[in-house]
C-alpha cells in the first residue's frame, strides 16, 4: 500500500501531503525533512526509486514539483510510478495545463481529486473520465451554494433574523 503522498517544490516547500499510515505530527515533520533531503539531492539521470527506512519511495519530477509516494518494499514500483502519472494527468485535465501555482491556490481541489483517485493507500479509480465527472458535479454544487448565499432574498432573511 501507499503510506503517504508528498508533493515538494524544488526549493523544498511542501505543497501537498496525504498520509495513509499513522504518523504523529513530530514524525511527519521528520519524515518530510529527511525525504526532502534525499530526493532533492538526486541527479536527473538516476532511477526513480529510493530505499528508505525499509520502505521504497517512488518519486517523479514534473517541472518544479516532485511527486513522491512511499510504498511497501514488496509493491510494484513501476505501477506506483504510473499512479503518480495518472494523478498528474487528471490534475492536468481538470486545471487545464496545470502548473505549480494552480496547486498553490487551489490546494483544496487538489486534495479532492487525490481522494477520488487514492483510498487507504490503494488506487481506487483508474478512469480519468469518472474522476472528472465527479469533481465537476462537486463544483456545480459549490457554485449553487455560493449563489444562494449571495442572493438578495438570503441577505434580507439574514438581516431580519
Amino acid at each position: 500500500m501507499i503510506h503517504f503522498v508528498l508533493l515538494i517544490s524544488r526549493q523544498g516547500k511542501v505543497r501537498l501531503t496525504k498520509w495513509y499510515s499513522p504518523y504523529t505530527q513530530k514524525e511527519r515533520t521528520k519524515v518530510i525533512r529527511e525525504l526532502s533531503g534525499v530526493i532533492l539531492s538526486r541527479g536527473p539521470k538516476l532511477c526513480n526509486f529510493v530505499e528508505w527506512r525499509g520502505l521504497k519511495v517512488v518519486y517523479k519530477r514534473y517541472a518544479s514539483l516532485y511527486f513522491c509516494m512511499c510504498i511497501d518494499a514488496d509493491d510494484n514500483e513501476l505501477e506506483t510510478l504510473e499512479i503518480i502519472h495518472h494523478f498528474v494527468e487528471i490534475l492536468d485535465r481538470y486545471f487545464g495545463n496545470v502548473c505549480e501555482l494552480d496547486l498553490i491556490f487551489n490546494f483544496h481541489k487538489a486534495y479532492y481529486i487525490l481522494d477520488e483517485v487514492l483510498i487507504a493507500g490503494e488506487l481506487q479509480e483508474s478512469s480519468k473520465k469518472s474522476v472528472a465527472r465527479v469533481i465537476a458535479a462537486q463544483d456545480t454544487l459549490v457554485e449553487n451554494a455560493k449563489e444562494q448565499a449571495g442572493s438578495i432574498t438570503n441577505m434580507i432573511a439574514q438581516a431580519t433574523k
Partner: protein
Amino acid sequence: MSLLVSLVANNPEGYWNCVPKCVRTLERLTRSQDIPQEYTYYGIPSPWLQVKTMRVLQYFPSIEDPSIRRSLVEVLQRILMGTDVVKNVNKNNASHAVLFEALALVMHLDAEKEMMAQCVALLGRFIAVREPNIRYLGLENMTRMLLVTDVQDSIKRHQAQIITSLKDPDISIRGRSLDLLYGMCDVSNAKDIVEELLQYLTTADFGIREELALKAAILAEKFAPDLSWYVDVILQLIEKAGDFVSDDIWYRVVQFVTNNDDLQAYSAAKARDYLDKPAVHETMVKVGGYLLGEYSHLLARRPGCSPKEIFHIVHDKFPTVTTSTKALLLSAYVKILMHSQPPDPELQELVMGVFKKYESFVDAEVQQRAVEYFALSRKGASMIDILAEMPKFPERQSALLKKAEDTESDTAELSATKLRMQQQVSNALVVSDAKQTNGTPVAPLTRLSSAPRNIDQMGVDASAQPPPYSNGAVARSAPAHPVAPAPASPTPAPAPTPAPAPPPSAADLLGDLLAPLAIEAPPTAVPTPASTPANAILALEAPPSAGLAPAPPAPGDSLALALMDGPPQALVQPVGVIADWFRNLCIKESGVLYEDPLIQIGVKSDWRGFQGRMVLFFGNKSPAPLVNVKAVTVTPSNLHVQLTTVPEVIPPRAQVQSPLDVVCLHASREVPVLDFSYTSVNVPVSLKLRLPAVMNKFLQATPVLAHDFVPKWKALTGPPTKLQEVVRGVKPLPLPDMADLFATLHVGVCPGLDPNPNNIVAAATFYSESGGATLCLIRVETDPVDRTQVRLTVATPDATTSFEFKEFIKEQLIDIPSAAALPPPPPAAPSPASLGLTGPAAVLAGLI
C-alpha cells in the same frame, strides 16, 4: 481488487473459485477485448488491474485445473514476449510494470524451465538498459530469482554486467547490485567478487561502507578457497576501511587463526608487515598486536622478526592508541616476553620498563595489567604455562551473519543474507577441532555467561559452563546489535591450560593464578557463589564435569541469568543456593526456602517448647498456573510432622499458604524433607527440600547461676550423660563470635561461670515430647594458641539428648559455610583439656 488481495493474503483458503475468474479477467485484459475506452491507459488496458490480478494469483500455491493453468501460462507468455521498449515513456512504464509482475508470478508458479530461462534472459537484457529504472528492477528481480530457483548459472553469465553496475552513479542501483553479488557468490566466483568489493570499498560512500565491509567479510569467510587468502582479505579490509570494520569481524579472524595451526605463522607475519607501515588504523593495531603476542615466537627464526624487533614495531604504535587497545597490547607484550626463551635480558628490560611506566596510569584496567604482568614476568619460566597460547575456540555460528541480517532490515525483503542462511555452510573454511569443552551444544551459543564455581559443601555440582570468554581488548564488548536476540561475541579467552582436563583442585589453583589474567574480572581467588561479581567472566577451562549440571547462577548475577542460553534447560533452576537458604532458616524464623523462576516457597515459623508451626507460602511467580502440585513430607523418627494438604493447582501470580505442625519427640539431628513437585506449562519440576525443623528450634536459652550450674554439672559424671570430645578442624574464631553463635542457636551463654577466659559455658533447655524440658549444659574450652581445636563437654540428664546435642554443636562448630552471611561458627580452639587441668581451669575443675 485490492480488497481481494488483502483478504487472500490473509487466508487463501476460501478463495479458490476466484482463481479461474481472475485468470479470465487477466485474459480479457491482455487481449484488450471489450474494455471500455476510459480504462485504457496509453493503449494498455488498466495496467493496475492486471498487476493486482497477478498479485492475487501469487497468493495461491498452485493451480490444479490444467485448462486454467494453460490459459494462464499463455497469458504470461504473451506478456513476456509482447512487451517492448516503446518511445512513450509512460506506456513503457506501464507495460513494464505488468511485465515485472508477470515475472514475479512466473517465479512463483515455478512453471517450466523454459519460461524461467526466458525470464532470466529478459532480466539479463534489462540490467544493461540505459534507463535506470529498468536496470534497478532488473537487478532486484534477479536477486529475487536467486531465492526461488536455481538459475544461478545463467545469472552468473551476467556477472560482469553486475559488477559494472556496482560502480553506477546511482546509489539505489549500487545497493541492489551489492545485494545481488552477495547472493550469487559461491566458491567459484568468490575470489573475484570479494576483490571487487574491496576495491569498491575505497570509493564507496559512507552510508554503504559498513554494510559492504560486513558483507565482504562474510563472503570471504564462507567461500574462501584457502584460509590464508581469507586472512589476507580481512587484513586488507581493515586497512582500507578500518572505521567500518566492526569488532566482530576481527574477533572472527582471531578465532580462525587460533583454531588453525598452519595459519598462525602466516598471519603473524602478515600482521607484522601491516604494522610496519607508518599510518595504521587502530583496529589493525589491535589485531596485529594480538596476533603477534600469540604467535610471534613462531616467527622468531625469520630475519627481521626477532622478539625485540617485533616488540619495537608494536610499541611504536603504543602511544597512539586508545586505552582499551593499550590494555590489549600490554597482554601482548607479556606474551612476547614469555615466549622468548631463553629470556633476552634487553627485551626484558624494555618490557619491564613499559610495565613500570604504566603502573600508575590513569585507567584502572591498564594499571592493573601493568602491575600484574610486571609481577608475573619476574617469576620467570614457570609462568610460561599461564601465558601460553590461547586454546582453540569451539565452533559456533558466525556473529557476523546475525549482524548482517539485522543491518539488512533496510533492504529488500528476501535479502540475500536470508538466502545465505538457508544455504549450506560451505566447507571451505573448516574450523579444526574445537577444544573439548563441556560438550555444551554449541549451535545456539550466545553470550557465554560466567558460571560461578560453586564450591559448596552441600553437594551442589561444582560445574561450570564452557569457558566464558572475556575480551582481551574491550571490556565486555557490547552486543552486536541491540535487537539481535543473543549477540555472540567471540572473544579470546585468557585461559591457557596445558592439560585438557585438570582436576578440580588444580583448576582452583589455576583459578587463583589465572585471576590476574582474567582481563576483565577483578581478581577473585576461589570464586564463591556470593562473591562472583556479575562481570567475572573468569575463563576457567572447566574440567568436564560429570553431566552438565548447570550451576545455579550466583544470586544477583542477573546478567548471567538473562543471557544464559546454553544447554537446553528442561529443568527449572533455583535462583539461589538452596543450602544457603536452609542454613538461613535454621537460625531465622522466616525467610525463603526455595525460589526459582516459576515459584517461590517461603516459610514463617513459630516455636514453642517442643512444638512448632511452620507455614509454607507457595507463591506462583509465573503467568501460567501450576498444576499437579503435590507436597509430601518425609518425616524422620524424632519428629512428628503434619502438613495440611496443598491445593492441586496454584493460580498465576497467587500465593497459597499451607501450615505445617511439628512436634519434637526426642532429640535428633535429622530433619524432615519436603517432597514437592509441580508442573508448569508441561514442564514437570520436582524438588526435595529440607525443612528447617532443627534442634536449635526446640532449644531455649536458660540463664543459669553458678550455684545452680555447678551441682548439676557435678551430678552428671560421665558418659553417657556427660560426653566430652576434642573437636578438630574448627574454623578459628574469636570467643565473642562463638558466644554469638551460641546465642543464635538459642543456647544461653553464662558468663562468669568459668574463671578461664578461654572457656565458654552455656546452658539451654531442650524441649521434647518424650523428655519434657531437659537442661543441657555445655562447656567449650578453647586454646588461644591453636584455634582449630576445642574440647567440648556436654551434659544432660538424658543420654540420647547428650549425644545428639554434642553432635549438633560439633556440626555447628565444624560446619563452615562459605557464605559470609552467617555468623562464623565458633572456632572453638582445641584444648586438649583433660580432667587434670592446671592453672585457670583448676578451680572449675576442682568444682567438677
